[in-house]
């Protein structure tokens, strides 16, 4: 077990190193002037380009720059934003709470909705409620997130203005709880609807597989109630792939819920990235991308280790 964890962690470190190296090469490989121009953006005046070249030391050999880059990364130093002259780590720190609240709030909703929907349609396959669920899931999968978000904002502002819901930057619940709810409820629902569709499908498929197993028949044969068979014997085993997906999703989403944050103007990590691309603020893009990759790598390790507890066969293979 211990060796398995160590192996997974080492693989995670390897992936992160690959990500950092790729990002570094994408941005910094090439002649110093070309790189400075790339970092400054096509419209920046020549003085700015020269200034960037000097301040980042782009004249030095690539390998020196690379080791500096890695060294700074290890110290948590992600550089300084071009636009706001603030350390990138500060900007990322400021945008993390919005993203974290968004992801975990929505996760509660989509797990409840997704698992309930999946169980409801798997216990009565081909019934009316199964058909209705399937149609809703298909609609949810076909609906682009940003379209759903825009429609919700339109409804909230123009049709139900008394609801008080509004798009806007994240407000800490400790400062103003009412405002926190007003800005968070729509993004929560928006993200949850899109995610729940996937989870209903996943739960339904996994549940149907499990309910077809021999041990379920055994449980029924020894007289366990239908409810006990469904939840204690069926759902518990059926949830393993759902939990795996959940871990992966949480990791990916913590790296920035790009679309939902942008639609609602939540100013989380994802929106920070999009804004930096528009402004050509490359240190922020690089930093945010590496932080996002770190979230994903950590989530994948947690999922693999948790999975090996749930299903010992994984460890041995």
């Amino acid at each position, binding site marked *: 077990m211990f060796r398995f964890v160590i192996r997974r962690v080492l693989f995670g470190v390897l992936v992160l190193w690959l990500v950092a190296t790729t990002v570094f090469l994408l941005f910094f490989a090439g002649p110093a002037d070309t790189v400075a121009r790339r970092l400054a953006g096509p419209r920046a005046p020549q003085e700015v380009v020269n200034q960037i070249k000097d301040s980042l030391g782009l004249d030095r050999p690539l390998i020196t720059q690379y080791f500096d880059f890695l060294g700074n990364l290890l110290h948590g130093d992600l550089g300084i934003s071009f636009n706001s002259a603030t350390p990138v780590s500060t900007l990322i720190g400021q945008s993390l709470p919005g993203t974290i609240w968004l992801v975990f709030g929505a996760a509660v909703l989509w797990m409840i909705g997704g698992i309930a929907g999946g169980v409801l349609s798997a216990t009565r396959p*081909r019934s009316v409620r199964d058909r209705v669920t399937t149609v809703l899931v298909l609609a949810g999968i076909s609906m682009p997130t940003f*379209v759903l978000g825009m429609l919700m904002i*339109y409804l909230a502002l123009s049709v139900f203005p008394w609801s008080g819901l509004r798009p806007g930057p994240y407000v800490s619940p400790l400062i103003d709880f009412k405002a926190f709810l007003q800005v968070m409820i729509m993004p929560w629902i928006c993200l949850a609807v899109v995610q729940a569709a996937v989870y209903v499908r996943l739960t339904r498929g996994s549940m149907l597989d499990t309910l077809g197993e021999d041990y379920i028949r055994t449980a029924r044969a020894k007289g366990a109630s239908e409810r006990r068979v469904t939840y204690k014997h069926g759902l518990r085993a059926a949830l393993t792939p759902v939990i795996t997906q959940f871990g992966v999703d949480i990791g990916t989403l913590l790296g920035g819920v790009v679309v939902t944050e942008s639609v609602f103007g939540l100013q989380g990590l994802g929106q920070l990235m999009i804004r930096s*691309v528009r402004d050509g603020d490359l240190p922020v*893009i690089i930093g945010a991308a590496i932080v996002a*990759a770190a979230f994903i790598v950590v989530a994948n390790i947690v999922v693999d280790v948790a999975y090996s507890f749930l299903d010992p066969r994984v460890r041995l293979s």
Partner: protein
Amino acid sequence: MSLTEAQAEAEHLPEQPPGVPGKGPWRLAWERLRRDRAAMISLAVIAVIVLLALLAPVFAAITGHGPQDQFPSEGVTPEGLPVGPSATFWLGADGLGRDLLVRMLYGARISLFVGIVSTLLATVFGVIIGMVAGFYGGWVDTLLARVLDVVLSFPYLLVAIVLAAVYGAGLPLLIFVIAFFSFAAMARIVRGQTIAYREREFIEAARSLGAGKVRTMFVDVLPNLIAPVTVLASLLIPTSIVFEATLSYLGLGVDPRTPSWGAILYEATDYYRVAPGLLLFPALMLLITTLAFNLLGDGVRDALDPRADRR
């Protein structure tokens, strides 16, 4: 008996009892698909959308509004607001006084183009890589499977953002990113299927007849992969369309002046409270398109795999 003799004999063998017309698997699948009402309606809807996209210049000619033409006097009210649907602007105009309907129809061209081209690219590369990995096995498979794992574990939006930051957004980059991520999903499925077929008798037969590896892959393995590949490809099209719209909405897709559904929706942000049509019409068009492709894809899956119990 030589091979040619065997073939000649096989050709003369009656495959069906006399009086029963033979039906190939494709014919059977098509007949099942035709009985699927949702899939047939979706097919009709897709045909209409394709037709509308092809006829976009005709609509531009009838209304006299090009997709980029701005009509600041007719399309925008004196207060600076876009006009609503009328005899000249059938679905209204946008904030710059451009014809919404004409732009949406040109947008359909972009969506369909990106959806189909990136799916084709993903399918060709996914099938080749997946087959090579599954068929050759050994270190080739280990290496390719690891690469696919890494690609699939990467969040596509993040990559799209970084690439757009380095190389600038645009249609070729967009298609590349979409194809790159779809190809991994395709390759993984093809690899699994190929491994399942590799040890079957008919492959062994091909090998013992002296067929080379490449020939065996394309002549003997590939035809068996057509069903799962068709299903996945038909579901990749709506995914790609949504992806294009999303990236264009975020300003990372096509040139913002190009009429794409995502870009049209992004531009609607400032106006849709006063002109809801700017949001509702393109949103509806996008939703109908992806829903139709998804329903058709589900229908194709059920038709090609009747054992699948309609999960």
